[in-house]
C-alpha cells in the first residue's frame, strides 16, 4: 500500500513534470545587458537582450544601485528608450559614480538575473549625429566657386556652457563613386569644399565625437547636384607642372652644354672590347681561328673580374703608407689623369692576383736624374732610346686598349704595384724597379735615367696574360723597349718589373721573363720564369734578337743561344728575389691610345704559346 502510494505520487509528479515540459514552460533564460549610452553626459539609456522566455510570459525588470549607496532602485523609465531598454533621466543620472545594473527576467516558473554591469556615465558618451545638414553652392565673384556645407550640433549636447565639447567629420562622394572623401572639421560647424566634379550629384554626411567618447552615427545623406558649367579647372596644378618641367629642361640643357661629352659617355659609354684573356682582335680579323683558339686555350678562363676592375682603376704601389703618388707638375697633360694611387703596403689587400705580377706598361717619360725617381708619363710622349736597340713602339690601336695595364710590383716583402708618380723623396730604393733602372742605366750608359712604366693616360692595367699575340707562336718574347733608359729629356720610363703572382697566367705556354740585367751593349738579359718559384733560374737566356715586328707593333724577340749564362748582376739578382717573392711576368707595356706615345711592350713567350700582347 505504501509502495503504491509512493509510486503514485512519483507517477503524478512525473506526469506533472512531463506535462509542463510538453508545454515548454520553464524559468526564463538569462538576460544579458548589451550596452548603455549617454548622448550628452546628462542622461543615459541601457539596453538588454532577453533570454529564452521559457514558454511563459516573462517580465523584465532592471535594478541598480550606485557606488557608495546600498539602496537598490528600479529603472525609472522603460519606455523612452524603446523595447528592452531603460532610460535614466537627468534626475537619475550622476557623473563620476559607478552604477551597478542588473536585469531580471521573471515568469511563473522562476526568476533569472543577468550578470551585473558596472557603468560610469563619463565613459559611455556617444552623441547623436549632427542635425540640419545643409548644402549650398556658392559662386563668389573673383574667387573659385565652392560647396558650402553647414550643420548644427546634435541634440542633447550642451556645447555653449562647455559641458560637452565636440569634433566633427564630413564625408562626401559623387553618387556613382564607391570611395568616400573624408574631411575632419574639428570644432567648426561648416566646411567649404573646392574640388568638385561638374555634372555630378554629390552625397554628403556628417558625424561627431565628444572630446572623450565614441563617434556618433553618420547623419542621413544630403545630396546636391553640381551644375555642368561648374568651373573646375585647377590651373594651379598645371602651372606647377609647367614650371617644374621648364626647370628640369633648363637643368638638362645646362648639363648637356657644360658636360655634354661626359654625359654622353656616361649614357652611352664606348663599347669596350672583349676582355677575354688571350683573345686577340687582330687574330680574329685575320681570320686565324686556330691561333685564336690556341691563344684562348692557354689562358686561365674566365678571368677574374675583380682583377680587371682593379687593374683598370688604379695602380698600386707597395711599401710605406706615406708614399704618395703625386702627379707630375705637368699633370694637365694627362688626358684622363691617372688617379694617384696610394701605396698599398698590404699585399693581401684583396686585389689578389691583380696585385701580383702585373706589368705596367707606361708611356715614355722624362728620364730623371735620380735613378730612383719615377714619374708618371705625361700625356703624349715619345720614347726614344737612340742608344739602345730598343725602340719605342706605337701601341697598336685596338680595342684591347681597354685591357689592363699590368701592375708593377714594387719590391719588398710584399708584392704590390708600381707607384704611380711619386716624388723623389718618397722613392723607396727597395723597389725592384730600381734595379731595372740601374740596369737601364748601365745599358744606356746614362746615369739617372729612370723609367716608369706607367701608362697613365690609358689607365688600364694589362694583365700579364691579357692577350696573346697571334703571331707569337713559340717565338721569343718581344723585345722590351727600355725606353725608360732613353735620354730623352721629357720621358721617363721605368722598367716594368715582372712579377708573377697571378694565377691568371697559365704556366704554358706563356712564360714570363724577368729582367736580369742589361748587358753593356744594351741587351736585355731576361730569364724566363718556369713557374712560380722564387728565385732566379739558373740559366738565363738573352733575348736580344728581334725576330720581327708584328702588325700590332709588337716586337718578337728571339733568345740568343749564343749568349747564355750571362752573369747576372749580383745586386739586382739578389734584390730581385726578395723584392719579388713571386716573380712577376714579363713586364708589359701598355700602349696608350694617343699616338706618339711610346709603349713598352714586352712579350715573353716560349714555346708555342707565343707572347703577350700589350696594348
Amino acid at each position: 500500500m505504501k509502495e503504491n502510494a509512493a509510486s503514485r505520487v512519483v507517477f503524478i509528479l512525473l506526469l506533472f513534470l512531463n506535462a509542463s515540459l510538453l508545454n515548454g514552460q520553464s524559468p526564463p533564460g538569462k538576460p544579458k545587458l548589451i550596452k548603455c549610452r549617454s548622448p550628452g553626459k546628462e542622461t543615459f539609456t541601457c539596453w538588454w537582450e532577453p533570454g529564452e522566455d521559457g514558454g511563459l510570459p516573462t517580465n523584465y525588470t532592471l535594478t541598480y544601485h550606485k557606488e557608495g549607496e546600498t539602496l537598490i532602485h528600479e529603472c525609472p523609465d522603460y519606455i523612452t528608450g524603446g523595447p528592452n531598454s531603460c532610460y535614466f533621466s537627468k534626475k537619475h543620472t550622476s557623473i563620476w559614480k559607478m552604477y551597478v545594473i542588473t536585469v531580471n527576467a521573471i515568469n511563473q516558473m522562476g526568476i533569472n538575473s543577468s550578470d551585473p554591469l558596472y557603468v560610469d556615465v563619463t565613459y559611455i558618451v556617444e552623441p547623436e549625429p549632427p542635425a540640419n545638414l545643409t548644402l549650398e553652392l556658392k559662386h563668389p565673384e573673383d574667387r573659385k566657386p565652392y560647396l558650402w556645407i553647414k550643420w548644427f550640433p546634435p541634440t542633447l549636447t550642451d556645447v555653449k556652457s562647455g559641458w560637452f565639447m565636440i569634433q566633427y567629420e564630413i564625408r562626401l562622394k559623387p553618387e556613382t563613386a564607391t570611395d568616400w572623401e573624408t574631411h575632419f572639421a574639428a570644432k567648426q560647424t561648416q566646411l567649404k569644399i573646392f574640388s568638385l566634379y561638374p555634372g555630378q550629384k554629390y552625397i554628403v554626411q556628417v558625424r561627431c565625437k565628444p572630446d572623450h567618447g565614441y563617434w556618433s552615427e553618420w547623419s542621413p545623406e544630403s545630396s546636391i547636384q553640381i551644375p555642368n558649367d561648374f568651373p573646375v579647372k585647377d590651373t594651379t596644378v598645371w602651372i606647377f607642372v609647367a614650371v617644374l618641367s621648364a626647370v628640369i629642361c633648363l637643368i638638362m640643357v645646362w648639363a648637356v652644354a657644360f658636360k655634354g661629352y661626359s654625359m654622353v659617355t656616361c649614357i652611352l659609354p664606348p663599347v669596350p672590347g672583349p676582355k677575354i684573356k688571350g683573345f686577340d682582335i687582330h687574330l680574329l680579323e685575320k681570320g686565324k681561328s686556330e691561333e685564336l683558339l690556341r691563344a684562348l686555350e692557354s689562358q686561365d678562363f674566365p678571368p677574374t673580374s675583380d682583377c680587371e676592375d682593379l687593374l683598370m682603376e688604379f695602380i698600386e704601389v707597395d711599401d710605406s703608407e706615406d708614399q704618395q703618388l703625386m702627379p707630375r707638375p705637368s699633370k694637365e697633360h694627362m688626358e684622363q689623369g691617372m688617379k694617384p694611387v696610394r701605396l698599398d703596403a698590404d699585399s693581401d689587400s684583396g686585389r689578389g692576383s691583380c696585385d701580383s705580377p702585373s706589368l705596367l706598361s707606361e708611356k715614355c717619360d722624362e728620364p730623371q736624374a735620380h735613378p730612383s725617381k719615377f714619374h708618371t708619363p705625361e700625356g703624349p710622349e715619345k720614347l726614344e732610346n737612340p742608344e739602345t736597340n730598343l725602340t719605342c713602339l706605337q701601341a697598336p690601336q685596338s680595342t684591347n686598349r681597354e685591357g689592363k695595364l699590368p701592375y708593377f710590383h714594387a719590391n719588398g716583402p710584399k708584392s704590390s704595384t708600381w707607384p704611380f708618380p711619386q716624388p723623389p723623396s718618397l722613392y723607396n730604393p727597395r723597389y725592384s724597379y730600381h734595379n731595372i733602372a740601374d740596369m737601364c742605366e748601365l745599358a744606356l750608359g746614362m746615369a739617372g735615367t729612370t723609367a716608369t712604366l706607367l701608362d697613365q693616360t690609358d689607365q688600364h692595367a694589362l694583365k700579364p696574360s691579357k692577350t696573346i699575340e697571334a703571331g707569337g707562336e713559340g717565338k721569343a718574347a718581344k723585345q722590351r723597349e727600355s725606353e725608360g733608359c732613353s735620354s730623352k729629356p721629357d720621358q721617363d720610363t721605368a722598367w716594368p718589373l715582372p712579377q708573377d703572382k697571378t694565377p691568371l697566367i697559365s704556366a704554358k705556354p706563356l712564360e714570363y721573363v724577368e729582367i736580369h740585367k742589361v748587358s753593356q751593349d744594351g741587351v736585355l738579359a731576361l730569364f724566363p720564369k718556369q713557374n712560380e718559384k722564387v728565385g732566379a733560374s739558373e740559366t738565363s737566356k738573352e733575348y736580344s734578337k728581334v725576330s720581327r715586328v708584328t702588325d700590332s707593333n709588337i716586337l718578337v724577340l728571339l733568345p740568343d743561344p749564343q749568349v747564355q749564362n750571362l752573369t747576372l748582376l749580383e745586386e739586382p739578382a739578389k734584390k730581385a728575389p726578395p723584392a719579388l717573392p713571386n716573380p712577376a711576368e714579363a713586364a708589359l707595356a701598355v700602349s696608350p691610345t694617343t699616338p706618339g706615345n711610346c709603349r713598352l711592350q714586352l712579350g715573353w713567350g716560349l714555346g708555342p704559346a707565343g707572347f703577350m700582347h700589350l696594348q
Partner: protein
Amino acid sequence: MKHTFYTFLKAFTGSRLLLLLVVSNLLLCQGVVSTPVCPNGAGNCQVSLRDLFDRAVMVSHYIHNLSSEMFNEFDKRYAQGKGFITMALNSCHTSSLPTPEDKEQAQQTHHEVLMSLILGLLRSWNDPLYHLVTEVRGMKGAPDAILSRAIEIEEENKRLLEGMEMIFGQVLPGAKETEPYPVWSGLPSLQTNDEDARYSAFYNLLHCLRRDSSKIDTYLKLLNCRIIYNNNC
C-alpha cells in the same frame, strides 16, 4: 694677511651671489610661460588669461587621455576576469572632496569653489603619481605603455598645477587657496607581496586617476567657457 683673505672672500662671495642671482633669474624665466607672471591687477601683463586657460585645458585633456589609455592597458593585461571592479568602488582617496556630480550642480558652483577643487585634486595626486611611477617600474613585466604614461602624467600634473595656480592668482587675486587636500595612503597595498592584492591596488589607483582627471578636465572646460567665452563656446 687675514684682512686680504677676508676681502677676497667677500669679493668672491659677492660675485658668487651675483652669479646665483643671474642663474636663478634665468631658471625662473623658464616657466610654463616665458612671460612674467602678472602681478595682481598689473596693467602691462604679458600673459593673458585666455592663453593660460587654453594651455590648461590642453594639458588637462592630455592627462585624461593618458589616464584612460593607461587604465585600459592595465585592465586588458592584468585585470581580465578578476573582478577588480567590485573592489574599486569607493576606493578613491579624493572622494572626500565635495565635487559636483552633474552639470546642474557644476553650473551652480562658483568658480572659486571649482578652482579650489581643481587645485585640491591636483595637489592630492602629486604623491600617488610619484609612487605609481616607482612601483610600476618595479612591477615585473611592466609594459612600457603603462610606465611611460605614468611618467608623463606625473610631469604634466605638476605643470597643470603651476598653471592652475597662476589662473587662480589672476581670476581671484587675493583669495586664499591653502585648503587642505586629501592625502593618499595606499602605498602599502601597492607594495604588498600578494600579487592579486597588489594588482587590485593598482587597478584602484588607475581607476581613481582616470576619474579625477576627467573631473579636472570637465571643470576646467566649464570654467573656460564661463570666464573667457561667457558661456558661449
